[in-house]
């Protein structure tokens, strides 16, 4: 018969083991990506890959700068669409909506997270892209704009729910004080609540950025995958994730290794974004 103390001891060891496992997985993945990248880093060189602007593996051209720019462009445009929408939804859910409305809208927003990205991609490809082709009057509609809109819908729930929590977590005295001073509800929301919750909102936006930059399947289906610098909203482009997804199945040798370098660059980008998010959270706690 185990004493309850030994159960206590063993359970904390088990939890520790689980915790360490996830850390080890991270290290193993990082090491694996790095090892697979080595041949390309040695033969082509990081500088040539990172700052090269031409991608044509058949003729040994392995520059991924266009895709770094593509990924960043799509992320920025999609956040430009998603942040105002999410902030509006968060204010609605936290302050404005009556209970019945909240009961319907909130689960609806959360359900968006559960829709597989390939479904978003499909809708983007068959419904959104032809629509954009009509507006722009040329091409097939595969574009930075189509990709950004699809992505905006995908990151919407993340930013909305974190922003809503941030607004709800404010001490009630903020709102009460503002109203007591004669501010209207709207003034209270816009001048007091939203600015006070800005760190939480920013953390949500940064988490959304992390999701946006890592999104793959939906991007491959609507962005056209052209390895060029996007020249505008209606231009096609290629993302880092898309580069790996489209080509890895057929890649051999150095080409394959360069795709791992693409992964490495993506890994570092996401690490930077996540660290920024952690920092934003920490400063909020202080």
């Amino acid at each position, binding site marked *: 018969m185990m004493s309850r103390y030994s159960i206590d001891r063993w359970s904390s060891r088990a939890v520790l083991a689980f915790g360490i496992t996830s850390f080890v997985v991270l290290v193993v993945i990082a090491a694996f990506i790095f090892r697979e990248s080595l041949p390309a880093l040695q033969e082509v060189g990081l500088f040539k890959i990172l700052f090269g602007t031409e991608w044509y*593996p058949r003729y040994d051209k392995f520059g991924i700068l*266009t895709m770094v720019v593509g990924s960043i462009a799509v992320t920025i445009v999609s956040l430009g669409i998603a942040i105002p929408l999410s902030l509006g939804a968060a204010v609605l859910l936290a302050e404005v909506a009556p209970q019945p409305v909240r009961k319907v809208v909130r689960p609806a927003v959360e359900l968006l997270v559960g829709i597989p990205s390939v479904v978003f991609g499909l809708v983007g490809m068959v419904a959104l892209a032809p629509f954009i082709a009509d507006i722009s009057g*040329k091409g097939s*509609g595969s574009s930075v704009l189509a990709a950004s809109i699809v992505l905006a819908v995908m990151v919407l729930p993340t930013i909305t729910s974190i922003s809503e929590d941030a607004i709800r977590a404010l001490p009630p005295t903020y709102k009460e004080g503002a109203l007591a001073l004669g501010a209207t509800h709207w003034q209270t929301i816009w001048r007091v609540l939203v600015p006070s919750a800005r760190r939480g909102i920013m953390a949500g936006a940064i988490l959304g950025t992390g999701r946006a930059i890592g999104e793959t399947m939906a991007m491959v289906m609507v962005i056209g995958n052209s390895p060029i610098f996007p020249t505008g909203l209606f231009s*096609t482009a290629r993302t880092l994730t898309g580069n790996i*997804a489209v080509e890895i199945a057929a890649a*051999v040798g150095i080409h394959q290794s360069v795709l791992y370098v693409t992964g490495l660059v993506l890994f570092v980008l996401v690490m930077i974004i996540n660290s920024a998010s952690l920092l934003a959270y920490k400063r909020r706690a202080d």
Partner: protein
Amino acid sequence: MSKKIMIVVLTMVALSAMLVAGCSGTSSITIGGSTTVQPLSEAWTETFTASSDVEISVQGGGSSAGVKGAAEGTLDIGSASREMKSSEEDEYPSLIVHHVAADGVAVVVHPSNDVSDLTLEEIRDIFAAGSNDEWTVINREEGSGTREVYEDIVMDGVEVAPNAEFLPSNGACKEKVANTENAIGYISLGYVDESVKAIKVDGVVCSEDNVRNGSYPVMRYLNYITDGEPEGIVKEYIDYCLSSDGQQIAADEGYIKLN
């Protein structure tokens, strides 16, 4: 409590026993690689498995994945819509290539497009210039066997402009061309249907006869690749594909019989 556990354990033992028995009763092989060969493999598999006790699963992945899979043993048969590259022959010397059918690569445009006849040079120029107000150029991903053949024969060393759209399969390419009025792309003859218009190349229609007699320029062999000489079920299957029945199926699917 312990009774419940017993039941669970017994069920698991019984299930795994059935699984083992299932495996030894029927044999199974896996074919994968080129998306051009995939529909053909599926058609052959359907009739082949109807008359024998074999399970065959057919996958896509691209020609290079087919070569790699066959070499690494993850596929019993790799499929490729191109010949092996010299780098692949060096890396995997034990692989054997079997021609199982031939195929034309059709240059396709939207059905509403007036263009119906281009020379090889004109097509090359369009692809080299890339997407503009006149054309939306649809290319395939690096490593596609169809693209490999297309670049060898049509592009002849000239690069396809990077602002073309890159799509990862014959099906996706056809869909895009079918839905975009000024699109031009290329797909396997087996995929051509009324949703797109195959144009004449140098005045020659992309048809079975013209590919077989060599007058249509953009053609290639479709290949099965095995690690060493095929044996057992794999050999039976490949022999079936090469039989007159098998070749007739290839023709019915829109590919081209060997001689």
